């Protein structure tokens, strides 16, 4: 996956937020609050190469079963793709 928009990630009072900046700020107003796991997913989006790898990253760090991690990750990725924050880097669009 590739992050295609510009964001500043920031922690305010223990909460992680994603704030659109630069040209992205012209398209999206406001900010997104990330849960702890969403933060890990965002930080690793461009580092891993598949959904399974991302699930592995999560299950290594958190006490979460593989099925739940996979469902949650797929849901977030699908939403980020829908709103155009990220795009697939693989031709078959599996990642």
């Amino acid at each position: 996956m590739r992050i295609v928009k510009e964001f500043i990630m920031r922690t305010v009072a223990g909460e992680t937020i994603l704030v659109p900046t630069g040209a992205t700020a012209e398209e999206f107003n406001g900010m997104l609050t990330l849960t702890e796991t969403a933060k890990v997913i965002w930080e690793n989006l461009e580092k891993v190469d598949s959904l399974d790898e991302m699930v592995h990253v999560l299950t290594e760090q958190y006490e979460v079963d593989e099925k739940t991690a996979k469902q949650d990750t797929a849901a977030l990725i699908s939403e980020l793709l829908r709103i155009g924050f990220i795009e697939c880097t693989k031709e078959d669009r599996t990642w």
Partner: protein
Amino acid sequence: MERTETFQIGDFCFQIRYPKEITPPPNFMLFRKEGAAPEYEYEIQIRSDFPKAAGRQTAMRPDLAVFTDGNREMRFIGVKGTEGYYACYEETTDRSARIYLDPARLGGLNIDPVFSSLLALERRLILRDSLILHCAYVEYKGKAILFSAPSETGKTTQANLWEKYRGSRTVNGDRGLLTRKGNEWIVQGWPVCGTSEICENKTMPVRSIVMLEQAKEDHARLLAKGEAFSLLYRQITINRWNTQAHMYAMDLIEDVLSHIPVYQLGCTISRHAVDCLDDAMHLSC
């Protein structure tokens, strides 16, 4: 014939050289500062053909196009709902900018935001630890209460209720300039006051910031820092196309939150809304 005058808004002292056809709005003239040493110079010219845009386009809105070339900015400034631009702003050195005005659109310059937008003031003020907050700025017992919210929520209405039931006084109905002074934050006057028509050049410490929302029943509470950040951020003028300035503005907002209590007031138009907020604010004292 030209006129040259010096102004000070917040901690920013600047000079404007402008032709006789231009008259800055009365609210802007409240910030005239004779005898002060300007740190920045603006030159206003009337010219129908604006210079060509130079640099990388960093923002494009219906009323504003910004081009960036290194540290310098060039802006084409318009009014929402009106086609074309009435002015072009071009930074010529680190301490000066030139502004070109369309001769056919000089009539609108007596409107506060139309004139003040010529100067890209927020760009200079962030360097002086200052943030422009969209708020009704009210003086109460020697300190400021800042009622902030999106337009049409009722900032002026709550300010008027406080005037009626608590004897406070509105200093500016639409904007205040928050400025960090050492380890505290103060609020200073701003030359734009919206429809309230109340605008004074007055400085005072800040008692609290109140984020308003309309509600069927009055309720007030002290906001946690994370909640307050998101609400306050939306009401502050930030050049988000400039990532460095954007990040610094967020640093400053966090600092504001470390020093000033921020409340949320869900309110009706009533004396009860005033009592409700008063109770909440006293609880935290």
